[in-house]
């Protein structure tokens, strides 16, 4: 018997727990040449802001041991072009569409979400309150409990769809941030966004990124992410979407075992666009080999 990979996140059924992380999957269409998009549990779009953003000047990325730094600067087409040019493609897909939203002020988050809500054809919102790379990119919300609660509460006023809060690891207590998100009405939390990092070129003594610092991602951060998902799962009872260095089914299983209901594949999409497909196939095999009938049989089952 085939194991049942379906999971429920805030009333939305994902056909499997494997989704793709914001900023690593464009607007979905970029991956159509490489994978069957309908096979995904869900797609999280690039962060959408009220106005179109060009992003930071190059260099924006650099490789590190087992990962990478990036400071893209929330480059995106803006909400109007997103609705006109990107939603028509996304709405044809048979997968859950999660639109990631970023803003400089509460009003901006609200305005983007209000226009999204009007346009429709998506399933959930993920609020980026954790971008480390732009002053107005949300992290000022994401490192302050009252602000997280406030922005989520405000967005909830204009949408009937579930709101996911994407949390930053660059805080003293991510569990408290998750509680604050829940308090504001978040239906789920996703974690972790990137860790603030820096790399210096020893030849010219300059930072390797134009922004100076950037966000660290990739397999190097996975243990940090697993620990944080574990911590948050003990603190809140809303679903958790685990993110951080997942490149294989075994990586995903680790996140599920510490309490993640779903996962997001991020940086690994850059190394192999087919990663999400192999994670889905591998998860199914993992469960089948152990005669487990459902993904729920491993969620939160780590022997800790």
């Amino acid at each position, binding site marked *: 018997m085939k194991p049942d990979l379906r999971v429920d996140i805030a009333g939305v059924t994902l056909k499997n727990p494997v989704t793709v992380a914001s900023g690593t999957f464009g607007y979905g269409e*970029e991956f159509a040449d490489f994978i069957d998009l309908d096979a995904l549990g869900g797609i999280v779009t690039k962060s959408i802001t009220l106005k179109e953003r060009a992003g930071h000047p*190059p260099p924006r990325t650099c490789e590190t041991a087992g990962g990478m730094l*990036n400071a*893209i600067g929330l480059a995106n087409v803006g909400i109007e072009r997103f609705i006109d040019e990107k939603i028509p493609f996304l709405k044809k897909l048979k997968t859950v569409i999660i639109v990631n939203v970023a803003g400089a002020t509460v009003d901006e988050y609200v305005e983007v979400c209000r226009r999204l809500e009007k346009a429709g054809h998506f399933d959930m919102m993920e609020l980026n309150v954790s971008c480390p790379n732009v002053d107005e990119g949300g992290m000022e919300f994401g490192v302050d409990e009252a602000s997280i609660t406030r922005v989520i509460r405000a967005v909830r006023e204009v949408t009937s769809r579930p709101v996911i809060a994407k949390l930053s690891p660059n805080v003293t207590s991510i569990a408290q941030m998750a509680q604050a998100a829940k308090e504001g009405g978040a239906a789920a939390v996703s974690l972790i966004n990137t860790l603030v990092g820096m790399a210096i070129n020893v030849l010219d003594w300059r930072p390797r990124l134009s922004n100076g610092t950037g966000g660290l991602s990739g397999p190097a951060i996975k243990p940090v992410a697993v620990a944080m998902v574990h911590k948050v799962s003990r603190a809140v009872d809303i679903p958790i979407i685990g993110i951080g260095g997942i490149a294989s089914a075994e990586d995903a299983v680790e996140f599920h075992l510490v309490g993640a209901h779903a996962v997001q594949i991020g940086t690994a999409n*850059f*190394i192999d666009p087919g990663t999400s497909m192999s994670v889905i196939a591998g998860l199914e095999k993992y469960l089948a080999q152990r005669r487990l009938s459902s993904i729920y049989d491993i969620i939160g089952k780590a022997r800790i």
Partner: protein
Amino acid sequence: MRKIVSQSCRIIENRRLDKTGLYRSLRVTDFKAARTVHPGQFVHIKVAGCMDPFFRRAFSIADYDPDQGELEIIYKVIGKGTGVLGQKTKGEYLDILGPLGSGFSRISKSKTVVIIAGGVGFPPLYFLAKRLVQSGHPARNILFFYGGRNRADLVEMKRTRDLGVELTPCTDDGSYAFSGFVTEAAAARMEKLEGKKTTICTCGPEPMLAVVQETARRMGFSGEMALEAPMPCGIGVCLGCIKPSLESPQKYVRVCHDGPVFELGEVKL
């Protein structure tokens, strides 16, 4: 349409092309392209299986035989990725993703093609010249200018001449053939050509491309250039390999996905 998936391909040759061994040709077999391969496109290669280096490395395609599934790249050993690649031997396998990016546009057989290659910009242009000749473009109307700092930078010249094209090697230090920048040799020849009946195809270091772009603009020639950039993803999503657009420098193009082949005048160099 078939999906483009990463493939494990067996190396059948990884030979040095010059005395120093810095320039190399690597050929693999069993590369089954899910799309027609066009000169100017690239493949993204995982040079090591252990995440070090972490990103794939992009190499323009130097030759491809769809019947045999034989793919060739020509590269120069300059850093970590190419260093690892240079150590690979026949019989080992490489994880290859592609073909990726855009290729050079179709060129009318009635046009004269001025090819301007600088250093490691040579491979996609060799492939272009070969495909043009194969498709019946008169070889005498393909003028191949190939520049390097010195003689050691110029590889596979016999192979290029064997296509029947007019090859003009150039060396910055004058150690071989035309003494001076490849852009000077090409511009001198362009003086005698009509802009409307000519297409320029170029690839090489950015300062060289900037000169070609400016020369073409000044003399009224159009054409295309293939750009190079470090590419984390190679498929247009990470937004790491961007260049400012010439028209509005606040806007960026993605080298991997909007290019790597761009029209002259499109990108600010």
